[in-house]
């Protein structure tokens, strides 16, 4: 999954709504200031780059994404790849929102 996918036009809820919700979830999970999360771009590294994002925090992140974005994340999706960058995670969230 590339960061470029994150810029594709979704057919579900607006990109900005998903983007805003995803940033809010990351702010809660990572205990960051709003301004820090606002500074995330498509290439910002997540899993493996941020010590706060351990396996338990990632599991919490997925559960929050399911709740707040009304999506279902399958076990097969939990492969860590889309967690490498913010762009990857956003593209994943957008694709799941379109699916549901």
């Amino acid at each position, binding site marked *: 999954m590339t960061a470029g996918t994150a810029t594709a036009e979704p057919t579900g809820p607006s990109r900005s709504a998903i983007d805003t919700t995803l940033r809010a979830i990351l702010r809660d*999970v*990572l*205990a960051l200031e709003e301004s820090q999360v606002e500074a995330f771009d498509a290439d910002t590294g997540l899993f493996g780059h941020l010590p706060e994002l351990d396996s*338990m*925090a990632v*599991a*919490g992140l997925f559960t*929050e994404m399911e709740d707040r974005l009304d999506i279902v994340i399958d076990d097969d999706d*939990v492969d*860590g790849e889309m967690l490498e960058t913010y762009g990857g995670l956003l593209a994943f969230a957008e694709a799941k929102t379109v699916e549901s």
Partner: protein
Amino acid sequence: MPSGATADEVLLGFDLKREHRLLVLMPLFNEASKMRRQIVETMRILDQSGVDCFCPDLAGCNESLAPHSEQSLSGWRGAAASAAAHVWATHVLGVRSGSLVAPGDLPGWAYEPVKPSAVLSRLARAEQIFAREANQAVTAKELIAEGCENGVTLAGWPFGADLINELAASELASSPHHRLITQEEIGGSPLWLRAEPGFDPAQAKALAAIIVERMGLS
């Protein structure tokens, strides 16, 4: 205890033999450590506001020496009811999954209660991610299926088959006596989501204020 026998556990209390006596039930498993300080600080504010507060260790949790793998939701429910009777609790506050074991006949509050299946799913996912990092391919579904048969360790917690089956099968049974407290009412971001335990004085104050007000003390 699973055998039906009883055992003593530690109980943190602020007891001045006052009229309003609150039993506080911490979240279970990983969220317990994230929320402990926050809840204890909330109990301190409640104490200063005229409320006696008691927070028991459930068997297998916190300081308890009982094996975690031998515990069950039904056992913890019985223990919470015994603790309520022991301290003459007039009200109960269940925090997150603590609400799952709160005595349903006591009036009180459920602070952002969580479904048992969601608790289990989060732990199993964490274990799946952890296993993958160790180059072991196993899914959360497989872990839960294995746990239902033989018990399983999830995110460092050894679960017996009884507890996994209870978590997998239980729906959130909310008591009509427990009023919901949402994170929106408290304000700020949920501390149980954070990787490290945190403390937010404003949230502690907000939670205590809701309880004090509804007890008619403010």
